[in-house]
């Protein structure tokens, strides 16, 4: 049973009378617990593919199953509900909510999206703070911590609701190489600890080397997939 299965997946954007194919007939399968990367140059369709898997953007053609759900037919509300229970997101710019503390940012999906009871929520947040090494920064606001720490918080937020799949779009693009390496290591540790499937996009060769499964995209087409299990 795969976590992601795409068959002839395409995405066409129309800008006035011009149609741009961002993703062209991509077929792929990602297995549970994978640490997979979409790689390729800018404009190759990595982010579009991630957005479709994340149910943020519906495909123009083809079939897409995420955790055994055909997500190509979900409406806006159903997609939101599916995301909140199944998928965690890590963004390039961290996208933490500035008025909330580190703890509250991690708690946000449980409190505002999933309505977990307070005690269980607090326990889970403490667990994630410990896992990403941010317990001592828990009461700080995002503007008081470094970029690497922000991304750690983002990782914790993505994992807090026990999603089956975490999608990360260029998670290290705004970090220096040491911090980037530490974030990828953290993600891999989280995969090992929680069994969550991680799929991320990158064009950084050092980060690519950390991926266990790699999908190379060029001009919206999947040109190569490789396994690098260590």
């Amino acid at each position, binding site marked *: 049973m795969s976590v992601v299965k795409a068959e002839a997946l395409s995405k066409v954007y129309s800008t006035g009378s011009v149609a741009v194919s961002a993703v062209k007939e991509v077929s792929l399968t990602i297995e549970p617990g994978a640490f997979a990367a979409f790689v390729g140059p800018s404009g190759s369709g990595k982010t579009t593919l991630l957005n479709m898997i994340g149910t*943020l953007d519906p495909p123009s053609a083809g079939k897409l199953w995420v955790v055994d759900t055909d997500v190509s037919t979900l409406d806006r*509300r159903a997609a*939101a509900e599916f995301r*909140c229970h199944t*998928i965690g*997101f890590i963004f390039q710019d961290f996208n933490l909510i500035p*008025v909330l503390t580190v703890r509250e940012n991690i708690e946000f999906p449980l409190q505002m999206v*999933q309505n977990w009871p307070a005690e269980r929520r607090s326990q889970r947040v403490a667990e994630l703070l410990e896992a990403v090494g941010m317990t001592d920064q828990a009461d700080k606001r995002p503007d008081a911590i470094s970029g690497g720490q922000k991304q750690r918080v983002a990782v914790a*937020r993505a994992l807090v609701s026990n999603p089956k799949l975490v999608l990360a779009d260029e998670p290290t693009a705004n970090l220096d190489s040491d911090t980037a390496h530490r974030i990828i290591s953290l993600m891999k540790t989280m995969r090992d600890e929680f069994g969550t499937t991680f799929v991320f996009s990158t064009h950084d060769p050092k980060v690519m080397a950390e991926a266990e499964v790699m999908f190379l995209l060029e001009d919206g087409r999947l040109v190569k997939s490789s396994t690098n299990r260590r």
Partner: protein
Amino acid sequence: MWNIFKLAARNLTRYQRRTMLTSALITLGIVAVLLFIAVAGSFKGAMIAEFTDSVLGHIQVHRRGYVASIDNLPLNLNLAPPQVRKIEEALSSIQGVESYSERIKFGALFSNFVETTNIRLSAVDPDQEQRTVPLLRGRITEGSKDGPLVTPGHILIPELLARGMKVKLGDTVVLVSTNRDGSVNGQQFVVSGVMGTISGPNGRDGYIHIADGRKLLRMTEPEVTEIAIRLRSLAEIPRVSRELNAALSDMIGQGPKAGTPGQGPMGSTNNPAGKSIIEVHSWDALSPFSTIARMIDLLTLFIQVMLVGIVLISIMNVMIMAVFERVREIGTMAAIGTLPSRILGLFLAEGLLLGLLGAAVGTAISLACIGLLNVVKVRFSFGMQQNLVLAPSIGVGSILLVAGVVVLVAVLASLQPAFKASRMDPITALRHV
């Protein structure tokens, strides 16, 4: 829900200066409206009292058709004794009636033995009149303000007449009047007081004792022209009018008496069959100055509409800015699965909190200002009422209404930006720079 409000409150602290400015604007609007309502209410109360407490009373009862021809002071539209008794019975059974005064109104010739002119007269029972229009005595500019208002054989004359006819206190004058049957009668009176005039109906009447009025008009029965009624409060006018009308509804006209065209059983020309022969009028139906009271109400409404505009524009502006500045944040919330309804709720909660903040601070400042005005005791004059103390007050109902409207408008103003935020496409929002 609590979490949404907590986050909304945090978001408001994000742009403190903007939140403060918007709240200050709403506060200012509320203070202006509540102070206006309180001060205008005080002034309106003094103005209404000028007419009700010195001339009109709160309600008047007449024979049907009298008010329509009030300028002619018709004597054939008086209330007959059985009708007066029926009205007295009704008044004694209705709660809220403080007192009433039976009056005979008529016109006469006024002579100082040198010159003659016209005068409008109210013949009254001094005790009844004093209880019903307590400010009347305050209109006496010359003569004693103590003792009975007017005694038999004496007359209180209007100031303008006294000046024009060069009549002084203690002078003897003659009143000549024609009664309902057309016979003329005259009687001498001693001037016991001069009354200051006030604008409006009956503001330039002279006053004599009701016994003298009946004697002068050669009345065989104790008829009265009108009954002026004083209530415990103005607010009771509609209820008492309703109850009085209901109690008098069985006083139905029989139609003109056969063989005497235009004359009813009571000698009335207005005695339509099947209709009540009694009319009940509140003070505002009798005085043109009620339009000033209505204008004050209209001004209050206008200021309230302006407040709604201020709140609507300021909150809408703030919320549109908030949505525009937080597009990526909205995109993030949507991406991680926050339902559109929660995002809508978040922005509505921000608008609601802004409205509540402005309303709470505005109400507190308004109450403080009203309290201060009552301590300082600002004085003013209106008509015959000198040295009036401005006593602004505001009811809980008015406060709740104004604050409620502000909060409601704040939420409504947030609706469009909030809806926009909730419908935002996460991809587009996340790409927003």
